[in-house]
């Protein structure tokens, strides 16, 4: 029952998104513009600084993710569907998981565009350790989205919610960014440093377990008023 509800919520979000593709296109393009801005900031004499590619990738993911989260819940607030969701006879954590999965799919699609682009623009050989790269991206995005979905949901009715989301989200998810950047940088070296990457993936997995659990636990009391 739990997974059925989560699946239904996710399907609803994705159906709405596929029809308009609004959030997807705007978020993806925002991520690309981000990369461009950083390209101009971090390129010296035509060559990017060392490790710039790793940093730029994860910053773009973080910024695009924040935007996607804000917009997704703004859509819910606008149509007042969040109340409808909460009134439905569904377990609240299942609604949270459904929303999380929807955001994850969105962010993965954006990353499919972003990673090759960053690789191309910054001469970063992401393809050399594809398995570990994907592991990093999956665990990192999951960690970021898990905390982000909870915070975005709870800020839906708050004042100054647009600026509050980054203010609350970034300090908590900086371990994700650190692990993502350092892991990616380890994989981008001349001979990919798989041991370091493995350590960072383990940290990210641990972070995911802790914070998804915490989010599932707190979603219910936060959404009741």
């Amino acid at each position, binding site marked *: 029952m739990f997974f059925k509800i989560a699946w239904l919520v996710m399907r609803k979000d994705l159906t709405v998104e596929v029809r308009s593709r609004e959030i997807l296109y705007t978020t993806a393009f925002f991520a690309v513009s981000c990369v461009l801005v950083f390209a101009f900031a971090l390129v010296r004499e035509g060559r990017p600084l060392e490790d710039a590619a790793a940093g730029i990738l994860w910053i773009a993911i973080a910024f695009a993710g924040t935007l996607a989260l804000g917009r997704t819940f703004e859509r819910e607030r606008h149509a007042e569907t969040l109340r409808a969701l909460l009134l439905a006879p569904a377990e609240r954590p299942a609604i949270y998981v459904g929303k999380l999965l929807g955001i994850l799919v969105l962010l993965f699609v954006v990353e499919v565009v972003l990673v090759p682009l960053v690789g191309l623009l910054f001469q970063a050989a992401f393809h050399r350790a594809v398995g570990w790269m994907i592991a990093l991206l999956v665990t990192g995005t999951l960690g970021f989205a898990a905390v982000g979905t909870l*915070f975005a949901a709870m800020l839906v009715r*708050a004042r*100054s919610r647009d600026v*509050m989301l980054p203010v609350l989200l970034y*300090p908590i998810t900086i371990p994700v960014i650190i692990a993502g950047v350092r892991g990616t940088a380890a994989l981008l070296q001349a001979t990919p440093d798989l041991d370091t990457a493995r350590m960072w993936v383990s940290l990210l997995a641990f972070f995911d377990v802790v*914070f998804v659990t*915490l989010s599932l636990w707190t979603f219910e*009391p936060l959404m009741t008023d």
Partner: protein
Amino acid sequence: MKRYLSPLLFVAMAMFAIAPVLIVRAPYESTMGLVQKIFYYHVPSAMMMFTSAFVCGIASAMFLFRGRASADHIAAAAAELVVVFGAIVLVTGPLWARKAWGVWWEWDFRLTSSLLLWMIFVAYLLVRKYGGPGSEKLAAAMALFGMADVPFVYVSVNIWRTLHPKTTVIPELPKPMMGPFWFSVAAFVVLYVALLTIRTALGRERAELERAFLDLEEE
């Protein structure tokens, strides 16, 4: 709890008056000399910061899951104390680091995590102040996540070999340094309890005042 406030404050002040004497009398550490003595304030402040983060987290959990309003007052007070003691840690640390390592700041894991913990609780206070109605619950969730962060910070030094001195330094302290160190810890604990009591009482009285105002308006 309020009855004990005056004696607590008095004891705290007395201890802080005595502490510098003990610290001056403590022996110099072999490599760092005089600068090392800031550790007698830096480490207890850090201990209080982490304790307060835990107190805030637990109080927030009680508030979120049991709905106890008194827990919310404790959480707000504890969060403010995290920010205060955290500020002390983040100022005394670089002062020491400049002399001991040559740089004001290093992005090693423990320093970074401590800064993050501090920022999480600053965000807690921002949400409480500017989040609008219902912001106590949002802040409580924030505190829970902050509390989950504390083990990361503590364990970080031991797992990821970093520049910051290991936590095992304390059990290995030479005997003459133990006395002033644990005295400082005790002084900070007494101060912490006193401050927490004052601030919680203030929060509670503010809430009662608001309730009285609302009752008056309804008549």
